[in-house]
């Protein structure tokens, strides 16, 4: 037969465990929601408006919760004759979001890395010929070890 002390201990710890897990999940969700807005603003900045440039979103959002040395990757087709903007953030002001673009040759060729440009949060790409590529995203571990990352892609009309 279990003692009342053990029962209390069980209830307390179980409650604590679920509270921790729930607050962690809610924090991650809130963190991601806030980043959505930050990235969205990068698609059409005041400078773009001043120069009469309009970027139209591809209608999708690319989110990943990245932990330590993990990377997220996806394949992307960029149409020839177009200009694209790729923007991303890990939700802070110190540019901890990194992204790289590779072609699909074997072995792959690195076409761009924002780490060469101070982890710049957005970059434009003029595409001469339609190309399939891999986008690889991660965190600059010198600045952030884990967290939500959000990326958006838009094309210029």
């Amino acid at each position: 037969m279990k003692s009342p002390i053990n029962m209390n201990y069980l209830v307390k710890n179980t409650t604590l465990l679920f509270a921790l897990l729930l607050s962690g999940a809610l924090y991650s969700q809130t963190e991601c929601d806030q980043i959505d807005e930050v990235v969205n603003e990068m698609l059409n900045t005041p400078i773009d408006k001043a120069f009469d440039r309009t970027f139209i979103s591809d209608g999708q959002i690319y989110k990943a919760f990245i932990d330590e040395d993990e990377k997220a990757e996806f394949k992307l087709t960029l149409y020839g004759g177009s200009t694209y903007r790729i923007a991303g953030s890990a939700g802070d002001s110190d540019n901890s979001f990194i992204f790289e673009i590779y072609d699909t040759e074997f072995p792959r060729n690195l076409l761009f890395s924002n780490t060469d440009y101070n982890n710049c949060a957005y970059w434009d790409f003029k595409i001469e010929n339609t190309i399939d590529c891999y986008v690889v995203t991660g965190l600059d571990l010198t600045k952030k070890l884990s967290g939500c990352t959000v990326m958006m892609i838009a094309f210029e009309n």
Partner: protein
Amino acid sequence: MKKQQIYNFTILAICSFLIISCGQSETDSNFTEDNNKTTEIDSSNIMMNIGGSIFSIPSPIQTTLLMSQVGAEFNASMLNSKDNADNYSSDFLKALNLGVYGCDLGYSAAYQNNDLSLKYLSTIRNIASYIDLENAFDETLIERFSNNFGNKDSMLVLVSEAYKGADIYLKENEKDDVAALVVAGGWIEANYLSCMIIKENSNKLIIDRLIEQKTSLQTLINMLEQLGSDDDYWDLAAELGELYTLYESIEFSSEYVPPVTDFENKTTTLKSKREANATSEQLNAIIEKLLLIRNEITN
């Protein structure tokens, strides 16, 4: 005391398991900081996004804009009839046709057909309400859309933003399967419209755009297979798989050309070359299959 230690250990083990499960990886990819700008594949350290792998499908609006830019004549009869919306009884068909109608709206807006655009927006709003997406296509959107008649860019930005809002909502609410259908519907409709234009007038740029869909199609199939939640998804993925086999018969070649970066303007020009040689038989087979798939999902 010993029991308490075992209990503590169990709690710790459950926590560890849950934390590790949340960050488990899935894709088969790679990353390196190779200074030679060429990389070998390391399949460790890969992760998945919240709700699965990341899938990117090009915007259908981009293809409808190309149609207007190459001078293809506006043809409203190609579009999915608004009256069909009442016939879509399942959530599967509603979500799929939400994507179809979104593309048709983009097409109408790209040609600045304001009346038709507004009618499609109204149809979209109606169908969206059945799958909990009324907030993404609310009255304010219709009002803002109407206020921007004559400004094609603003109209297209509004449509894209509304669909992005729907995508965000669905993914946040763990309805990635529904989000996948909306994207799939848009992809099918955009390429269906390309097929119809090619059938009428063999425009090279539109043909190229259709042939360039091989990778997107593969992504679409993977997305439906991975995120799908019932037989309807697998059936659609199988149909698209048959289309993909037609693409596989086409010869593609590519050549790496180093990119050029303009640091001041934060712009990189990707100059690599790619060619695809499709015979008219291969092209016709793709067109026929696409028409079939599109008609199956809209009728």
